[in-house]
């Protein structure tokens, strides 16, 4: 079996498990994408990730109906489209992209944005179900402070107590230890796969990160997830050893870093546009977002790791991080997605671009789009920007030569 086949199988299995769990009367949680799923896995609670589901709905081009459903309920079009898709799905309960069971509890971590606080609070209110919150304060300081670690750690302990109360079972710390170990190991292999793109040409077609990401979100604490990433790394190593680039029918001419979430409804169109110019996505901020590493058993380390993701860090960190990626992955150009849904990523972009470009001399472009709302993207604008990026990179090369 190839890793791609395994990926699809695991995702089918993931959704099927959740549906069966619900049918068997087991607890189902809806959780945010970078949350300590270790706690839920330990308690044997089936977990579904609305962001994953919304992205899948977007990619299958069936988001619009759900977006409009939410809008008719009074949700402004300015609100994050993942939230609008999910809050619509919560009532419609039917999507050609696949179905998920309604939750019995909400598990929310705001290390990705404060939008999820509102979104999940609304789900919990509408469905009248409990919400477990782990509040991870935004890090305006460069590093995660001890003050924040103490607060997060306290909440992890609270969450364990809440879960014990909900499941009427005591928390199995031995199992927890084991799952922490698997989670860190899986995260390590996910990172390893992404690092394969450092080779020139990259054996990794970077858009694959968008696909494999679904599993690092939903199966980080499971052996099957770990196996998938090991297999993927093996395949990439073989490709690298054979000197293969990302594509059979196109050469890797330009290497780019992608900032922001994919435009799911136009995933294939954006991919094809880039490929046409020989542009391969070799780096993004995604790999590190799930490179959540800590020693098994170390709750302080876990607290720090879950608060350390890129979007929860300050602007100086963001600039250092992107600049380092440009160097490490030999990036020629930067593509910034000004995503109508994601204010937290957008409203730092302009300053980040200025500083990263100044520091690395990479070429950059920014385009307007949205992660799932098909109405906020223009393929013509995207293509124009990409064309200009390709031309500028070529000109710089000629001038350099």
């Amino acid at each position, binding site marked *: 079996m190839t890793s791609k086949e395994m990926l699809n199988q695991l995702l089918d299995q993931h959704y099927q498990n959740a549906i069966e769990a619900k049918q068997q009367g087991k607890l189902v949680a809806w959780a945010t994408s970078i949350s300590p799923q270790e706690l839920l896995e330990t308690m044997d609670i089936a977990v579904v990730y609305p962001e994953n589901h919304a992205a899948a709905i977007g990619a299958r081009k069936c988001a619009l109906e759900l977006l409009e459903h*939410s809008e008719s*309920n*009074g*949700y*402004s079009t*300015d*609100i*994050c489209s993942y*939230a609008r898709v999910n809050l619509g799905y919560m009532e419609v309960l039917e999507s050609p992209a696949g179905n998920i069971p309604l939750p019995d509890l909400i598990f929310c971590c*705001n290390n990705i*944005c*404060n*939008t999820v*606080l*509102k*979104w999940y*609070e*609304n789900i*919990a*209110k*509408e469905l009248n179900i*409990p*919400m477990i*919150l*782990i*509040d991870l*304060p*935004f890090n*305006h300081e460069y590093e995660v402070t001890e*003050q*924040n670690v*103490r*607060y997060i*750690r*306290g*909440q992890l302990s*609270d969450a364990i107590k809440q879960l014990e109360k909900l499941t009427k079972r005591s928390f199995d710390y031995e199992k927890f230890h084991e799952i922490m170990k698997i989670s860190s190991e899986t995260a390590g292999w996910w990172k390893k796969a992404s690092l394969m793109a450092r080779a020139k040409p990259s054996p990794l077609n970077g858009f694959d990160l968008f696909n494999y990401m679904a599993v690092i979100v939903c199966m980080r604490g499971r052996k099957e997830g770990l196996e998938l990433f090991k297999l993927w790394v093996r395949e990439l190593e073989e490709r690298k050893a054979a000197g293969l680039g990302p594509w059979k029918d196109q050469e890797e001419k330009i290497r780019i870093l992608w900032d922001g979430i994919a435009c799911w409804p136009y995933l294939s169109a954006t991919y094809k546009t880039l490929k046409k110019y020989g542009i391969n996505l070799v780096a993004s901020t995604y790999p590190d977002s799930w490179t959540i590493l800590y020693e098994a058993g170390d709750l302080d380390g876990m607290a720090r790791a879950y608060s350390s993701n890129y979007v929860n860090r*300050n*602007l*100086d960190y963001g600039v250092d991080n992107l600049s380092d990626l440009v160097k490490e992955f030999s990036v020629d150009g930067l593509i910034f997605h*000004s995503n*109508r849904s994601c*204010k*937290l990523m*957008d*409203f*730092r*972009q*302009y*300053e980040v671009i200025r*500083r990263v470009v100044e520091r690395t001399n990479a070429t950059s472009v920014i385009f307007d789009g949205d992660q799932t709302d098909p109405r906020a993207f223009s393929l013509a604008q995207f293509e124009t920007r990409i064309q200009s990026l390709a031309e500028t990179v070529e000109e710089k090369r000629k001038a350099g030569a």
Partner: protein
Amino acid sequence: MDKPQQEIGFLCRAADHPRETVLRAMEKTGKRAVGCFPLYTPDELVDAAGFLPVGMWGGPGVSPRSGQYLQPFCCSVMRANMSQALDGVYDMLSGVLIPTFCDTLKCVAENWKAGIPNIPVFPMVYPQNVGSAAAAAYLEDEFIRIKEKLEQLAGRGITEESLVESFDRFERCRSVMREFTGLAASHPDLISAKTRHKILKSYYFMDKPEYTEILNGINEELKKRKGSRDSNPVRVVVTGLMLEPDALLNMLDANRLCIAADDLAQESRIFRVQGSREGTVLQRMARRFLDQRGDPFLCEQGKSRGKHLIEMVRQTGAAGVLIVMMKFCEPEEFDFPVYRKELDQAGIPYLYIELEQSMSQAESISTRMEGFVEVLRNTNASLGNGSDRSAHLLR
């Protein structure tokens, strides 16, 4: 002009001329000033450190310079703050506190470090998990951290005694503001919606002891005054971020709308919770924050905002709810579908209007406003069901 009118006029002018008001307060008190972004800044700490806390709630104009940092789909209040900062309007400030309650505020605090390096910024993060036992300790730590920053800025320590004095001073100010909102609702002929807003807004720019005494004087005069000469005002509860711009206020006054009570971030939400009497000052400050309910910027299981609005309507005998939605304010936008449903179920009519602080005209909403007022005047009850209601929603 009689006394309350003079004092009212004084506060309204203070609200209309923030810069001049702040400079005058600085000159009069000999103090430096620290800017306080929305929301819930620890003004007591700023005061105890010897600074004047100055509110920063945007302004009417947005210069193109904000576009160097923020996309056009950023809320107009934050675009205005960024514009004014880049244009040097805030150069009299010695520092700025930015509590980063929403994603936009997080980014603005970060951009400030880059774009306005001459004014030090102190971002603050309030806890969202208010039900967790760890939240109170965290918030106290956060106050201590900010206290130390302010001490460094002031070049002197804050004594426990001065902190107690500051807290008491602000508690008194908040209680006078609470009393004022109650009295204003009974005197709409003297305190129009616009006047009410300006009087409350002037808090942000004035020296607080002076403001408290003037407002208290107005309260005393209102208590002596006989009831309103306007025997039939339309009383509404207003909810949202803030009651601006002026074009909106003028429209409220033209329609003789009386604010029976408000649930506005810029107004009652900052003073409606009374501090507890137990614990150290920092613990009391933390408790005052953690006791806040029905606020879109604070995560709350069970979301009591709708219930809170319904109670406000019933307690004040208001005829309906005016929803002032600041465009692109995600926390406010997320709450609307939930409390709308609750208002519908309670049969309470409402009008939803979407605004930007930078709007100079509000003609687009005037017809709907007039229609809403007419319906409230004629039939208080019949609007609570059926399709009439949806006609009042801006979509």
